[in-house]
């Protein structure tokens, strides 16, 4: 809401010494937050000038400049021989714009003028071969609101609106300051000077007289006949008629200035007055050309498919939810949103029907959104306009039309409907103190409520407060607490640290996730966060087959990009994007990880229900909400590009391999004390022969690790062999035992045996290893230390060499023990894997 300070000061008797800044600070602490102070920065001789002569001069750069002689009245030099035209007292000014002609009134910033939009003081300077004695200004340079003329170039004033030499600062109100206030949705009344003035008076503890009370209300029947068929949508409707308006008159400068400063455009006297009253009192209103209205004005809901052409010349199709204003000719307006073109005020209009109504806020809110027609009127109606104001609002418009337009206000008014009664609210007198924490006495609170326009009853320890008609935000006891606190001052709230009875610390999953984060960093991975928006092309780039589950996405109704219509099902999309970016920026080593959610639609997902808010949903209802949501587990993913160990002066580097990804995956599982087995798998986007799936004890697969398919790596511009992994961290956390390792070891001596087997290539090393490990109770550990294929090994086989550590919990092993354990291992290898000792 833009509030011209000059206007505000006419409505509340603010001491002259209160600066605009102080006013703004106080209003900010009164819940009318200052966005900015507009205007007021111009100083120096900003002057009205008349263009006497123009000499267009073509420049070498192809541009044509205008060398002008300008009459600036008392500011003229006696002689400017160099300037075009007859050498009369004037100034010579160079101007690059072309949208003005000889005889036009313009605004000249003479040397010494400071324009905040430019940020410097204008001087006399030599340019294009002339001494330019100042500058002819554009709207933008003057800091005026942009309109169609500002695009064209300089500001040309209305002929006869001023004389050369007049102060343009004064003429255009450029010394005036305007507060741009952010009005929260609950403070609809502050979308008017009336409301802001009332709060200003409260904030500065000044008396306030309501400008609505100053309006002479029409007495008796009159106006224009009205029939309201939908009193729910239109509780109050008022008309007043003004006749004999002189259509040639325009709004006076002071009104144009206030409207302009408030951010609206001057259009015609009638429209300007209509807007002025809306800004002044907060009552939107509409003027119909009485000659174009036929028969009674009727308010009703639209029939499906009815159409109306609104003032913006758009033909709109209506629904039965739309509230319309009709006469015998059909629809003449979309209630509270926009008027119709058929009854629009024109250049010949002399008689006007002034309408001021109170519309149901929700109806307006929905209509405005349905038709995508935000307007100043709808903005006020949807938040709530004082329903008791229609008569004063219409009368004020009529009064101004008479005063400024030479019209006659016809006696009486049509006033249909009744102002909805305000609902009283009861609460304990100490509630403001208890909730705000500030000592607010009942007397103080009562005074605040009354000065805000409330009727207050005190019954023992209970307040019963009836809010005024213009307050739509005072419905609950706590609303009054805010009102009292606003006056007591938010800065008086003391600081008291509450003392909870004691929490249980982080949850186990929270602790474990942090641990995983540290382990990943310890493994040399750099954490990234990536955006979850993904589309089919991203999944194509991973080479996912058509029937891959990860192609079923949670889709958005309004994605930012059509290429990324849904949420990701795998962290690898984001990680590979990030890896590509790093590589394209010249990084050779990119080893990145992310812990984040993926979004997997539940197969039978329904729409999530919407419940009322007057009670807690039942456990079944809450379960229904959760059942409608997709599965959103946290995953951990990683991509490794380049060298795992960098080459250096002390040795060669080691390139990333599939095994690094598996090692990291195992480390993550290991830090959670989760036993995982690995086995070969074929899953996109992995290399078909270099992918390990990670299997929990119960047989479920928690993730994959290995090498990225070389084609996918190439698709993403990643060099060399790329390691990747992705694990369902939620599933892994669920498998983490509450009680982890139970260390148990023997102090008796160890015996070491190395065994090399010849075994078929298809036999997985891990399978053979675990067979050996289980072959005898005396086998403490088995570690593979060599894999060999070559001359000494038959085709289709390989040699796997293991070191076994043998130990008994209760004795030193004898040679017989060792031989028995060794034989058992060899036997088991032969039995289960047809492995032969080499």
């Amino acid at each position, binding site marked *: 809401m833009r509030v011209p300070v000059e206007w505000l000061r006419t409505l509340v008797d603010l001491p002259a010494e209160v600066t605009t800044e102080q006013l703004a600070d106080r209003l900010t*602490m009164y*819940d009318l937050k200052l966005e900015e102070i507009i205007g007021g920065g111009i100083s120096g001789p900003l002057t009205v000038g008349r263009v006497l002569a123009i000499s267009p001069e073509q420049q070498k750069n192809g541009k044509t400049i205008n060398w002008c002689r300008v009459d600036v009245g008392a500011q003229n030099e006696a002689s400017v021989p160099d300037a075009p035209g007859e050498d009369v007292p004037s100034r010579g000014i160079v101007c690059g714009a072309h949208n003005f002609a000889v005889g036009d009134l313009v605004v000249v910033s003479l040397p010494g003028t400071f324009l905040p939009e430019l940020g410097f003081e204008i001087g006399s300077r030599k340019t294009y071969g002339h001494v330019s004695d100042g500058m002819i200004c554009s709207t933008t340079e003057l800091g005026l609101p942009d309109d169609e003329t500002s695009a064209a170039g300089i500001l040309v004033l209305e002929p006869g609106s001023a004389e050369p030499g007049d102060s343009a600062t004064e003429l255009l109100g450029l010394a005036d300051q305007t507060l741009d206030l952010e009005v929260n949705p609950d403070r609809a009344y502050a979308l008017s000077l009336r409301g802001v003035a009332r709060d200003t008076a409260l904030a500065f503890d000044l008396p306030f007289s309501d400008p609505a009370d100053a309006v002479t209300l029409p007495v008796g029947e009159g106006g224009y006949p009205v029939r309201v068929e939908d009193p729910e949508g239109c509780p109050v409707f008022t008309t007043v008629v003004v006749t004999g308006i002189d259509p040639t008159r325009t709004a006076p400068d002071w009104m144009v200035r206030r409207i302009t400063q408030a951010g609206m455009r001057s259009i015609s006297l009638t429209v300007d007055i209509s807007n002025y009253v809306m800004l002044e009192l907060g009552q939107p209103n509409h003027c119909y050309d009485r000659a174009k209205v036929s028969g009674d004005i009727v308010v009703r809901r639209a029939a499906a498919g009815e159409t109306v052409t609104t003032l913006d010349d758009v033909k709109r199709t209506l629904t039965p939810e739309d509230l319309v204003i009709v006469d015998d000719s059909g629809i003449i307006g979309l209630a509270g949103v926009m008027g119709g073109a058929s009854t629009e005020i024109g250049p010949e209009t002399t008689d006007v029907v002034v309408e001021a109504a109170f519309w149901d806020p929700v109806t307006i809110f929905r209509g405005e959104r349905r038709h995508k027609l935000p307007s100043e009127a709808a903005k006020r109606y949807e938040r709530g306009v004082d329903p008791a104001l229609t008569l004063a609002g219409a009368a004020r418009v009529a009064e101004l039309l008479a005063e400024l337009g030479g019209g006659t206000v016809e006696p009486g008014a049509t006033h249909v409907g009744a102002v909805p009664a305000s609902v009283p609210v009861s609460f304990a007198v100490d509630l403001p103190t*208890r*909730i*705000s*924490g500030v000592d607010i006495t009942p007397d103080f609170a009562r005074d605040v409520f009354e000065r805000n326009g409330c009727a207050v009853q005190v019954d023992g320890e209970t307040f019963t407060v009836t809010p005024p008609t213009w307050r739509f935000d005072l419905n609950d006891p706590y609303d009054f607490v*805010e009102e009292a606190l606003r006056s007591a001052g938010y*800065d008086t*709230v*003391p*600081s*008291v*640290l*509450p003392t*909870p*009875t004691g929490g*249980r610390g982080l949850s186990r999953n929270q602790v474990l996730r*942090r641990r995983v984060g*540290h382990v990943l*960093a*310890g493994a*040399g*991975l*750099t954490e*990234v*966060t*990536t*955006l979850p928006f993904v589309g089919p092309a991203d999944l194509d780039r991973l080479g996912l087959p058509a029937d891959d589950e990860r192609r079923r996405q949670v*889709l958005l*109704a*309004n994605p*930012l990009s059509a290429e990324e219509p849904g949420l990701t099902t795998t962290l690898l999309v984001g*990680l590979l994007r*990030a890896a590509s*970016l*790093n590589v394209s*920026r010249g*990084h050779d080593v*990119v*080893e*990145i990880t992310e812990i984040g*959610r993926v*979004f997997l639609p539940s197969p039978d997902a*329904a*729409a*999530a229900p919407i419940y009322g*808010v007057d*009670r*807690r949903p039942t456990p079944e209802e809450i379960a229904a*909400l*959760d059942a*409608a949501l*997709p599965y959103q587990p946290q995953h951990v993913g990683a991509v490794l590009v380049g060298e*795992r*160990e*960098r*080459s*250096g002066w002390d*040795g060669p*580097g080691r390139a990333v391999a599939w095994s690094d990804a598996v090692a990291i995956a195992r480390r993550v599982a290991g830090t959670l004390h989760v036993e995982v087995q690995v086995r070969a798998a074929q899953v996109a986007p992995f290399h078909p022969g270099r992918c390990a799936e990670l299997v929990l004890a119960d047989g479920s697969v928690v993730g994959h690790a290995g090498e990225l398919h070389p084609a996918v790596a190439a698709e993403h511009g990643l060099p060399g062999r790329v390691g990747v992994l992705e694990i369902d961290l939620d599933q892994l956390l669920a498998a983490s035992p509450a009680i982890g390792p139970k260390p148990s070891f023997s102090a008796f001596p160890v015996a070491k045996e190395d065994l090399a087997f010849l075994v078929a290539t298809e036999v997985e090393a891990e399978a053979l290893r675990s067979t050996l490990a289980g072959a005898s109770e005396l086998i403490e550990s088995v570690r593979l230390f060599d894999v060999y294929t070559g001359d000494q090994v038959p085709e289709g086989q390989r040699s796997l060499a293991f070191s076994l550590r043998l130990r008994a919990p209760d004795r030193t092993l004898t040679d017989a023990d060792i031989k028995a354990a060794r034989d058992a291992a060899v036997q088991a290898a032969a039995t289960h894997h047809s492995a032969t000792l080499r």
Partner: protein
Amino acid sequence: MSAPNSDYDPVEVTPLHPDEVARVTREALEAVAAASTLADLKQARLDHAGDRSPLALANREIGALPPQARKEAGQRIGQARGEVNRAVAARTEELEAVESAAQLAAETVDVTLPVDREVVGARHPITTIQELVGDIFVAMGWEVAEGPEVEAEWLNFDAMNLGPDHPARTMQDTFWVAAEDDAPEGSGKVLRTHTSPVQARSMLTRTPPIYVVCPGRVYRTDEADATHMPVFHQVEGLAIDEGLSMAHLKGTLDHFAQAVYGDGMTTRFRPSYFPFTEPSAEVDLLCYVCHNDPAQVGSCRTCGGEGWIEWGGCGVVNPRVLVACGVDPERYSGFAFGMGLDRTVTSRYDIADLRDLWDGDVRFTEPFGVGL
């Protein structure tokens, strides 16, 4: 020494003569001292203290002496041999030290050679700041609550007193989940626009007193630019207990500010509006760079000369929210607050472009190491 006493057997044995013993001892000591390597010393020891050395040979003569002369001669030779052996031992130690020092000196390396062959990892500052905030509140006896990012519309909006026709609902630019089978009534699901649904879930699943913070990702339909992202991070807090007021909110936020930014930090309230709180306030943080010090505030870039930095929104939980979430508003009151974490990170670490947090360029995360 004089000639042998005539009381003894007059056999003159030259090697045992004191002068001769003194001479060979002196020669031995000179040879030991002259040895400059352990090898030289070994030779000197063989020559002067070995089996064939003059003193060893002299020692053998003692047996031939008359008994009364043996003692004196034995003492003389014994002392001489002892003296030589001690000299050898001392010189051995000296030379070993010298040779060891030389050996170590020869092993000198250039310690400035690079030693960075292992890839070093780092954690994202958004992760660590969420942990930091969690730790601060856990230390105060609060707990950290979590919830889904694709959330039920009812929990994100309705339960937060943002009904379907609430004007404030349009203030937030919401990502809506597409309806199953294009159902016209919609999916009832959104990407959560704030972490407030976690507050609702906390009230629905816990019994007061409730003290929880909810850090996490939230979504708004903003195109990515230097100061906006469609995804960002928030932390919200909720306290529900008997007798809580705005004062407890202020105390909590002051404590939070001090825990993050140090002693002397404070906050201030400005009136505001949120559907889920009443009264509502915006909370400003005292500028942690200039502390609103008149001498510094004018030139402070962090707060733009304001002395205060906009931190977040807060207020007393609207009883309508309590009712929807099953908390008795006659018995309990509560407060809630929320602030963005991304801006906290960018302003604290002078990051000009919000997109840097999301691009995944390793140069962004690496400097943070494993903690802020």
